[in-house]
């Protein structure tokens, strides 16, 4: 069981360079998103969100049907579907395939699903070289860090950090111009693309009726990873299914806009199996590794299963007042921000990080920007309730429970309630005073009042005023 990482959070808050980096980058993303979703530019934005929500709901509620449909069509396209219960099965399959084919070098395009199972570490442990090719991911792989953000993984790194990392790890001359840094990465990674034996990608959508994998990106590294090597392996969670290729018209419009403020990302690849006999290039072998890794646990709860609608756009991170202060590495898992706060407890169990659903002001901004309309605040509340229930079972929270029992009892006895109110008012003194000034604040009450103020009860309760008025009118 983890505890709120208070020290690390205070360190992040005190680091003004980091604070500026997070605030600037998320701020730019928020502005860009806003500019392309306003009613003037995209009048049917809300309709698109509703349609996306309905399609995801339908797919998730009939998921077994769409999984089998996808399998059938992918197989007909010459691809191979590999079912994986967890990350170990994913890694085992890739390792054995690499061994059979004598493969050593793997190029990878960005995939949160492979981050989730720490695939690179598993592959490298067995002597394979797995190179991240998305610029942000590449920087982090060199720095041995996990992604800070779902969409912009190196969001917390400034050009000076990148200069340090490149100088140290690549042995190049120190370079602080971002264009030049990008060129360095292009040069190093270009050789990897041309020499790689296997390309591994994620998937943004698995299209059931076409048996296709849809991947969006801006750099071209996903296209290269899925085109240049002779083997392409896509790793995807089972929740990535959508029924029809025509549904992409809705999802592609929402994903680019919500993630980076682009009406469409630079590259959208819809890949349907290995190259055909009539085609010149593309991979000879095409695998889709379909992974559960805890997702079926989320399915069982009819309210919370909407967490699986997520299309990983990152909009909820950018807008979240908590994420924007504490950053991505203070969340317990690779999924950070509001979406991380709702899926981590469901994957790992609420008591792994019981503080996590509480690390939110419930302001609702995340739900407002979510392109598939996930009710994040409600799920946070449900998870809080689960944490409290679990704590009670463990015999914790006794005091809180007692306080609420007393409260409930008082509420059921109007006379007593009134008496308690009147004595409170008498004790705490005249109107306009605040409870924070009152020495009565001790224990949990004191903690609660350390950041808040509560007005003292009015000298006369409403009930008393009401009685007095009626008596006055009657006379």
């Amino acid at each position, binding site marked *: 069981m983890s505890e709120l990482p208070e020290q690390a959070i205070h360190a992040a808050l005190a680091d003004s360079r980091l604070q500026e980096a997070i605030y600037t980058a998320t701020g730019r993303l928020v502005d860009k998103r806003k500019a392309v979703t306003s009613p003037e530019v995209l009048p049917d934005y809300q309709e*698109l969100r509703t349609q996306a929500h309905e399609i995801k709901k339908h797919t998730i509620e009939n998921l077994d049907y769409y999984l089998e449909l996808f399998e059938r069509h992918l197989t007909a396209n010459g691809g191979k579907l590999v079912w994986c*219960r967890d990350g170990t099965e994913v890694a085992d399959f890739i390792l054995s395939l690499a061994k059979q084919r004598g493969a050593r070098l793997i190029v990878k395009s960005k995939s949160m699903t492979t981050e989730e199972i720490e695939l690179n570490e598993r592959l490298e442990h067995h002597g394979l070289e797995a190179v991240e090719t998305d610029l942000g991911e590449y920087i982090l792989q060199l720095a041995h860090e996990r992604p800070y953000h779902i969409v912009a993984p190196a969001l917390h790194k400034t050009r000076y950090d990148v200069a340090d990392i490149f100088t140290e790890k690549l042995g190049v001359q120190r370079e602080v111009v971002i264009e030049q840094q990008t060129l360095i990465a292009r040069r190093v990674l270009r050789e990897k693309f041309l020499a790689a034996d296997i390309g591994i990608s994620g998937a943004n959508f698995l299209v059931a009726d076409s048996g296709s994998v849809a991947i969006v990106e801006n*750099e071209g590294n996903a296209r290269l990873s899925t085109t240049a090597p002779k083997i392409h392996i896509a790793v995807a969670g089972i929740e990535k299914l959508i029924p029809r290729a025509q549904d992409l018209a809705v999802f592609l419009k929402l994903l680019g806009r919500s993630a980076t403020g682009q009406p469409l990302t630079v*590259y959208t690849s819809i890949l*349907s199996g290995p190259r055909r006999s009539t*085609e010149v290039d*593309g991979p000879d072998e095409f695998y889709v590794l379909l992974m559960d890794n805890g997702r079926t646990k989320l399915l069982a709860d009819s309210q919370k299963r909407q967490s699986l609608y997520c299309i990983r756009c990152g909009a909820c991170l950018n807008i979240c007042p908590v994420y924007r202060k504490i950053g991505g590495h203070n969340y317990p898992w690779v999924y950070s921000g509001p979406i991380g706060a709702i899926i981590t407890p469901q994957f790992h169990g609420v008591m792994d990080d019981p503080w996590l659903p509480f690390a939110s002001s419930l302001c609702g901004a995340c739900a407002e920007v979510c392109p598939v309309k996930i009710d994040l605040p409600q799920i946070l509340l449900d998870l809080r309730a689960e944490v409290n229930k679990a704590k009670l079972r463990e015999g914790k929270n006794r005091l809180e429970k007692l306080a609420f029992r007393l409260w409930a009892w008082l509420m059921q006895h109007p006379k007593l309630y009134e008496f308690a109110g009147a004595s409170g008012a008498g004790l705490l003194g005249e109107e306009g005073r605040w409870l924070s000034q009152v020495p009565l604040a001790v224990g949990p009450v004191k903690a609660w009042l350390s950041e808040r103020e509560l007005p003292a009860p009015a000298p006369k309760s409403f009930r008393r005023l009401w009685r007095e008025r009626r008596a006055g009118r009657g006379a």
Partner: protein
Amino acid sequence: MARETILHRVRTALGRAAGQDPEPAPPPRLRIPESGIDRRVSGFCAALESLAGSATVAHGAEEARQTVAALIAGHTAVASNAPFLAELGVPSLPGVQCGIFDRDELKRACAAADFGITSADYALADTGSLVMISSREEPRLISLLPPRHIAVVPRERILANLDELFTLIPLPSQHSSSLVLITGPSRTADIEQILVRGVHGPGHVHAIIL
């Protein structure tokens, strides 16, 4: 078996039986705006230019050929095997390599060339996208490996938007193993959210509309 385990877990969680039909899916949402060919051409050009790509309208085959020739003058290029490009006389331009049908040879040629020249199966007016359907005539790497990409597209292939594309092509897998939308030059903003073009794909995209 992982397959049976996962399907069993899914069905148990959802309370569904094996082989049970799904509820009817919400109908697809496809909206195609009415727009004449001239508006599509100007829309496509404006959208691509707003992404720092460039677009030229050529009046006639000779003008298109000369535009390509001017762009690649003094450089090397790999051209796709599209009959449309052959009709324009692109393969015979100086510096142009064409007619490569071997994968490894194509990879080497594209990695060394300054320009990749292709046609496009469609283009999208509202986003400035090129739609590339991989085939013997139109391989994938030509629009990907060289630092500059030139696409020559007949104007009647410009569609209004994604919705029209997926109306014409409801099942991409029936056409090819790869359908790619290219919307402007390759770019990244991974360092400080500062935009840089030409990371891994071409940093320059020129569309010539005929």
